[in-house]
């Protein structure tokens, strides 16, 4: 990216993650699901990168591969200038303290048989960051940070509402004082009336601790509120990456344009006026993606060149990257 003087905390280069498909009695590998197929981007310290796309396009796989929860097929991930793929054992474990994750479903990501204190305190104990009485104090402090009453520490997850549960998930992610947090659709399971609560909390914490977020979502309007840069993914590749304002005002890739036009406006009058690009069909299978540009099968402006070669992910304007043959 052009902005060289900014502090790059995470650098992802040509990341690939293929999941093998096995068939037959001998479990021979017959193919691969190309969940992530050559993704590169930078994340700057203290900012939020939004990652958007339809389900099944590989957003979560990118995040998990970065966190070394999967062993990447190819590519490099540098976190604070350390090459994560080369780390093993204790070194990797120490690195994990700095990279945490907030999960999508606050109903499924908290163990129902553990109290809040055990849930939030577990990372501290696992990483020997605190012992005995200290754990309890840290947990109370963390609960206060996320706006929960510390007296709730002895309660179980089922005693909380969805928004409160997601706060518990945030407190757990903060326990080891990480510098980078992956937020994997943290609000999509919540009612719209409380989504802003969680987003505001994440923003406050970011300011307070200079946190860096990778914010995964399919809700473009919420991403606009929290991100500085936004990357749009389609079928395992990033098709467009630029600053938030540039993306929303001047989307160049036809897929981004379609996504933006599909965002509903809660006003019937406005809705009638704005023109929608409706894409027909479904996302093709990542086990057998189309040749050339992966979006061409649904693209309203596709030409013959789109089937022949894969479009290069290039900078068409300063800070505006697009993978499309037809964007000048």
């Amino acid at each position: 990216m052009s902005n060289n003087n900014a502090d790059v905390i995470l650098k992802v280069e040509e990341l690939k993650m293929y999941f093998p498909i096995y068939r037959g009695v001998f479990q021979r590998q017959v193919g691969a699901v190309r969940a992530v197929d050559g993704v590169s981007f930078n994340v700057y310290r203290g900012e939020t990168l939004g990652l958007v796309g339809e389900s099944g396009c590989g957003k979560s796989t990118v995040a998990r591969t970065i966190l070394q929860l999967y062993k990447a097929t190819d590519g490099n991930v540098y976190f604070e200038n350390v090459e994560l793929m080369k780390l093993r054992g204790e070194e990797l474990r120490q690195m994990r303290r700095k990279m945490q994750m907030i999960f999508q479903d606050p109903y499924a990501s908290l163990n129902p048989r553990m109290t809040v204190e055990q849930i939030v305190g577990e990372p501290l104990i696992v990483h020997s960051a605190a012992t005995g009485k200290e754990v309890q104090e840290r947990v109370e402090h963390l609960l206060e940070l996320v706006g929960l009453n510390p007296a709730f520490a002895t309660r179980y997850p089922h005693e909380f509402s969805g928004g409160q549960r997601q706060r518990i998930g945030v407190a757990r992610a903060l326990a080891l004082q990480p510098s980078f947090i992956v937020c994997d659709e943290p609000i999509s399971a919540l009612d719209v009336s409380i989504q802003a609560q969680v987003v505001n909390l994440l923003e406050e914490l970011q300011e307070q601790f200079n946190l860096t977020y990778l914010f995964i979502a399919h809700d473009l309007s919420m991403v606009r509120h929290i991100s500085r840069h936004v990357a749009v993914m389609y079928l395992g590749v990033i098709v467009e990456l630029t600053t938030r304002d540039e993306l929303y005002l001047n989307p160049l890739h036809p897929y981004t344009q379609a996504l933006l036009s599909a965002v509903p406006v809660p006003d019937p009058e406005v809705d009638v006026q704005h023109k929608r690009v409706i894409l027909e069909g479904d996302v093709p299978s990542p086990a057998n993606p189309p040749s050339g540009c992966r979006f061409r099968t649904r693209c309203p402006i596709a030409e013959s060149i789109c089937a022949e070669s894969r479009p290069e992910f290039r900078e068409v304007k300063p800070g505006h990257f697009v993978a499309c043959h037809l964007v000048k």
Partner: protein
Amino acid sequence: MVTNNEKLLKVEKLVLHFRTTVGAVQAVDGVDFSLTSNRAVVILGESGCGKTSLAKAILRLLPRNVGEYSGKVYLNGTDVMAFNDEEFRQNVRWVGMSLVPQAAMNSLNPVIRVGDQVAEPAMIHLGVKKEEALNLAKQMFQHVGVPVDFLVRYPFELSGGMRQRVAIAMALVTSPSLIVLDEPTSALDLLTQANIFNVLKRIKKELGTSFILITHDIATSSELADEVAIMYAGQIVETGNAKQFFPAPLHPYAQMLMASVPRLRADQDPEFITGQPPSLINLPTSCRFAPRCPKRFEKCEQDPPVIEKEGRKVKCWLYA
């Protein structure tokens, strides 16, 4: 007797309580609304405020632990609440109104071909032969935009959006005048959502079907809505014409709900409603929204009446 001829559906004082060991869950507690032919009403509210129970009460799809179930539901002027279960099954469900259940895409039988599943209600409720029913299913597939060669496929061979369309086709096959859609798009992607709503709009235009759309997705619902009803803690707190409602909701709850929707093309930050909806077991005697309401005053200690204002109805003391 008052005739309800011009109304397709009229719901009066509908009550559905569930018995539990800790007390009655007042999921639907005196709901009134009506709908004219070829219109769509959207029922909006947070989770746990009784929206799905309202759908079940209208279609009489009740679980075993029903406590109180009363009120009137007029369909084309006939009080269908007076029917016994068998009459209701024969004359109302599927034929008069049908349901697209929540997570409809997962409600298909995995071991039966989708064409046969769509044809089944037609065979049972319209008494037609299988061949004719399959023919009807084929027509419905065309209406909802599923390729007709999908008739012989199994649900797992279809994507989520296609399965949702199949579920809608199944609700349409008996040509009911009203379809109740319970969260039809909440598990689907943005682009698929837009496609499903286009299908619904087309059906409304081509077949003249009316819809009750139950959802918490305010922004998407505005596309189809003619009327809006806001539900909170088992009651309807505001009803009105969609064109009037969306730019200027009246009830404080509706206003806050609208303000919490993130806007793509506006710079104001979305807001949130503090607290959560009350438990439906021990409901306060005051206005049910009062504990979370920023505009509450002394009068809110009492249950507010429904007040008519410019053709809209709102249950709030602010307008008394």
